[in-house]
Structure formats: structure tokens, C-alpha cells
């Protein structure tokens, strides 16, 4: 076991544990915070797997922007604690069944993968990655930026309190 694999398993354990904590929290703020930790773990893993640029993005966008957005919303909405069962029976029983099947399937698939090829360390330096992506996928990048723009406008529009509509409804 190399140091890299040790780090991998450590990070993997961290990710799984924090994600599991995140999805079981009743308190949304806690959940978000645990998830931030999970995403940090992911970022480290990206770094380990030779994607430093993505690792940075993961930290900035996922752990930073998205999770903060969640936090804002959670705080803004003042959602009262639900007293109900956190996992309603009617939903988690089929989900659990499916999980078991899924896990079994996962095991089967992974054990069946030919060769046990180990990953070698390598790094895609950000500059090279950027060159590559603008050379091969410039159109996709443009589209992605457009998507972001559209999302921005859409979110603005949806989130705006429709004053006129409210008045109409009130009548």
C-alpha cells in the first residue's frame, strides 16, 4: 500500500462518512455543513487523481458557491423542524430494497472488471487542461457559459416576487 492509496482510502472514508451524515441530518444547516466537508474531500481526491484545476473548481463552486447558496436559502426560508419520521416508511422500504440490489449489482460489476489496472499518478496541469479544452471543446465551453447565463436569468426571474401577479391572486 503506497501512501497514495492510503490517502485515497482515507479520503474515501471521509467522503462516505460525511455524506452519510449529511443525508441523515434533520437540521438542514448541519446537513449542508457536512456536505461541504464531503466536497472538500472530493476536491482532495480530485487533486490526488491528477486534476488540480477541477479540485480548485470543486472547492470554489461546489463547496463554496453552491453550498453557501444552500445555506442562504435554508436560513432565508426559516423552515420549521419537521416532527415527522425523517425517512417515511413508504419511501425508504422500496429505496432500501433497491439499495441492496444496487449494491449487489455494483459488487458484481466491479468484481467483473477485467484486469486490475492500478491508476498511475499523473497530473493535468491547469494550463495544459485549459489549452486542451479550448482546443477540443470550445463549443461546449461556450454552451456551458450560455447555460450559466440562462440559469442566472432564469433564477432571477423565478426568484423575483411577482408583485403584479400577487395582487391579481389576492383579488
Amino acid at each position: 500500500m503506497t501512501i497514495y492509496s492510503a490517502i485515497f482510502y482515507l479520503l474515501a472514508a471521509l467522503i462516505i462518512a460525511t455524506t452519510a451524515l449529511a443525508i441523515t441530518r434533520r437540521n438542514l444547516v448541519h446537513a449542508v455543513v457536512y456536505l461541504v466537508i464531503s466536497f472538500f474531500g472530493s476536491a482532495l481526491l480530485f487533486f490526488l487523481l491528477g486534476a488540480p484545476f477541477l479540485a480548485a473548481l470543486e472547492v470554489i463552486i461546489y463547496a463554496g458557491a453552491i453550498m453557501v447558496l444552500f445555506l442562504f436559502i435554508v436560513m432565508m426560508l426559516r423552515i420549521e423542524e419537521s416532527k415527522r419520521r425523517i425517512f417515511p416508511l413508504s419511501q425508504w422500504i422500496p429505496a432500501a430494497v433497491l439499495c441492496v440490489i444496487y449494491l449487489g449489482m455494483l459488487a458484481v460489476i466491479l468484481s467483473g472488471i477485467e484486469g486490475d489496472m492500478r491508476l498511475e499518478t499523473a497530473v493535468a496541469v491547469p494550463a495544459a487542461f485549459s489549452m486542451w479544452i479550448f482546443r477540443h471543446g470550445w463549443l461546449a465551453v461556450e454552451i456551458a457559459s450560455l447555460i450559466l447565463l440562462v440559469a442566472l436569468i432564469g433564477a432571477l426571474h423565478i426568484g423575483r416576487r411577482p408583485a403584479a401577479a400577487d395582487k391579481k391572486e389576492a383579488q
Partner: protein
Amino acid sequence: MIVPYSHVLALAGIVFLMGMVCTVTRRNLIMILLGLEIMLNAGALALVGASLRWMSMDGQAMALFIIVVAAAEVSVGLALIVCVYRRTGSVDPNFTETAAPEKPSV
């Protein structure tokens, strides 16, 4: 030498599963969205691993786009949640049944 690729896939798969469980079982729109994020992240994880496995930039590019899409989706999704909350006063995904929009007074 880090780990076999299958271990990365296993990790991604388990995280994806947890995201899915969260999405399917939590009766809260925000948690559903969180679950979605987890699933997307799991996908990105698998892609980055694959990128290393085949020594190709494609996987990382895909992961990049996933992050973009996640950002866009989250902004719109959260806006929708806010909207729904304003209309119904709840973030229960079952709002169509439990808290129908107040009917115009007859």
C-alpha cells in the same frame, strides 16, 4: 500507483447511491436538491478517475461541465424552491396534495 480503478468506481457508486437515497426518501425539497448535488459529484468523481485511467483529458472536461451544470441547476432549483415556498409555505415535495395553493375565495 494509487488504487485500482474499480475502487474509485466503487466510491463513486456508493456516493451516488447515498445521493439517490437522499433524493428519494427525504421529504424536503432542499434535501432532494442536495441529493442531486451528491449524485452529480459522484459522477464527476467517476469521470476524473476514468480520465486518469485512460490518460485522457476528456473525463476531466466532462467533470468540468458537470460542475457547470450543477451550478446552473442549483441556482434555478433553489429559485424554484423559494418560489414554491412562497406559494405554499412549505418545502414538502408533496405540496400538491398537502398544501394546495389557496383557492380564490368564492
